[in-house]
C-alpha cells in the first residue's frame, strides 16, 4: 500500500485510498498502542523523526481515530486519551501562546513527542540488530558434550532470588484463593474440653486454677493456648450449669478457679 496517500484531504477519497485506509484501520490490533501507531504514521512524512511535523502527525492520528470510529471499531482507551491529548497539542501549536498560561509550550510538548518517537524507533532498530547477530545455538555453538570426571561428588543446593520471591508470593497469596476451611489442628473444641474435664473433675476437691486443665502441648503456642483456654472456660461453664463444679474469680483478670461440688456426682 502506498503510504503517502493514506490520508488525503477529506473531500474526495479515491477508492484506492479508502481501501488502504481501511486496511490500516482493520489492522488496528496489529499496533502496540498509540505510540506505535504514531510512529507508523510518522513514516509517511519521510523525514528525520526530529524534524517531523507534529501538527501533521496529530492531524493524521485524529483522522485515523475518526475513521476507526466510523467503522465502529472499538478503540481502546489509550487511543482515545492520545487523541484528546493530540487535539490539545494541536490547538496549542496553532494558537498564539497565551502569556497567562502556565506549563510547557506546545513546541516543548511537540519536541518531546518527537523524541519519544525517535527513541522508540531507535529501540526497534537496536532490537533488530540484536536479533540479527550470530546467536549461540544457531550460528555458533558451545561444547556439545561437557566432560564429567567422576571423582568428588559434592551436592550444592541452589536457588535464585526469583525462586525466593515466588515462594514467598505463593504462600502469601495462597489465602486469597483458598476456599474457607477452619484450621482444625490448632483448635481445641468445647466437646474435647468437656470430655477431658469430666474425667479430671472428680479428683478436684480444692480450688484449682482453670488453666491447669489445659491439655499438654497446648500451652506454648499462643494460637493453641487461646483456643484451649476458651474451650476449657466454656466447658467449665457447662459443668457449672450441670451443677458439678463451682467457679470463682477474686477480681478482674485474676485467675479463674474451680472446684468439684461434693456429693452431687
Amino acid at each position, binding site marked *: 500500500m502506498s503510504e503517502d496517500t493514506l490520508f488525503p484531504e477529506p473531500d474526495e477519497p479515491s477508492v484506492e485510498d479508502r481501501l488502504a485506509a481501511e486496511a490500516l484501520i482493520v489492522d488496528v*490490533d496489529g*499496533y*502496540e*498502542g498509540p505510540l*506505535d501507531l504514531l510512529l507508523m504514521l510518522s513514516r509517511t512524512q519521510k523525514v528525520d523523526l526530529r524534524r517531523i511535523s507534529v501538527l501533521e502527525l496529530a492531524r493524521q492520528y485524529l483522522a485515523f481515530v475518526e475513521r476507526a470510529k466510523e467503522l465502529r471499531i472499538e478503540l*481502546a482507551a*489509550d487511543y482515545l486519551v492520545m487523541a484528546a491529548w493530540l487535539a490539545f497539542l494541536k490547538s496549542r501549536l496553532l494558537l498564539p501562546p497565551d502569556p497567562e498560561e502556565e506549563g510547557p509550550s506546545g513546541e516543548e510538548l511537540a519536541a518531546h513527542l518527537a523524541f519519544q518517537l525517535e527513541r522508540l524507533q531507535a529501540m526497534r532498530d537496536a532490537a533488530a540488530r540484536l536479533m540479527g547477530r550470530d546467536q549461540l545455538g544457531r550460528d555458533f*555453538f*558451545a*561444547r*556439545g*558434550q*561437557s*566432560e*564429567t*570426571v*567422576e*571423582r*568428588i*561428588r*559434592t*551436592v*550444592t*543446593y*541452589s*536457588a*535464585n*532470588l*526469583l*525462586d*525466593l*520471591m*515466588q*515462594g*514467598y*508470593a*505463593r*504462600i*502469601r*497469596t*495462597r489465602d486469597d*484463593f*483458598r*476456599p474457607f476451611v477452619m*484450621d482444625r489442628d490448632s483448635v481445641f473444641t468445647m466437646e474435647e474440653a468437656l470430655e477431658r474435664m469430666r474425667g479430671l473433675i472428680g479428683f478436684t476437691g480444692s480450688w484449682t486454677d482453670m488453666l491447669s486443665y489445659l491439655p499438654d502441648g497446648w*500451652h*506454648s*503456642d*499462643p*494460637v493453641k493456648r487461646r483456643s484451649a483456654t476458651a474451650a476449657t472456660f466454656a466447658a467449665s461453664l457447662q459443668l457449672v450449669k450441670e451443677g458439678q463444679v463451682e467457679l470463682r474469680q477474686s477480681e478482674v483478670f485474676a485467675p479463674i478457679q474451680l472446684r468439684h461440688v461434693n456429693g452431687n456426682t
Partner: protein
Amino acid sequence: MEDFSNPDTEGSDSLFEAPPMAEQERMVEAVLFASTEPVTIRDLEARMPHGCNPGEALEYLRKRYEGRGVRVVRVGEAWAIRTAPDLGFLMQKEIVETRKLSRAAIETLAIIAYHQPVTRAEIEEIRGVSVSRGTIDQLLEMEWIRLGRRRMTPGRPVTFVVTPVFLDHFGLESARDLPGLKELRAAGLLESRPPPGSFPLGQGSEERGDDDEAGDQPELFES
C-alpha cells in the same frame, strides 16, 4: 547419502573445488567440538561440502592437538575431543552437583527472610504446615540462616534470621531490599493462581496460567 564420495574420484563431477585442507581441518574441529556424541568419518563427510576429505583433515587435527590440553581421540568407529588425561585433576569441580532447593526449603527461607527474626512456630503458622527438622538443618548448614535472639515470650523460643552469606548469594545489600508483595505483583511475579492441590475444583492444575490472565490485564495491545 552414500554417493561416490571416495577421495579417489577426483571432483570431475563436482561443480566446485573442495575447500583447502586448512579449511577442512577447521570444519572437523568445529564439528567435533559442538557435537554431543563422537562423530564418524561418514558423518563428517555427509556434513562437509562435497569433495572434502575428512579422514585426512582429522589426521592433521590430531597432530595439531598433540601435547595440548585436549586431544583428538578415537572412540570405536568415531572421533571426539577429550581433555588430556593428565589434567583430570582440574575437572574435579565439574562434578559438583547442583540441585534446586526443595519447595519447602525455599518457602521456609522466604518466610525467614521476609519476617526475620521469626520462630519456628511462626513459620509453621504462615506456611500452614509443620516444618521438618531437615529443612531448617539444611538452611543452617548452607549458612543461609542462623539462630537469632530468643523471643521474650513463654518458652523463650529461638528465632531465625538470614545471614550475610544469604544476602551475598541473592545479591542483596540488606534484607530490606527484598521486594514487597505490592512490588512483586507490579513486577509481574505473583502467580495469580492458587498452587496446585489447594483448589478443590481442579482448575488449579500445573500448567502455567499465562493465558487466562486477559481479564485482569489492561494492556489490550500486547502481542
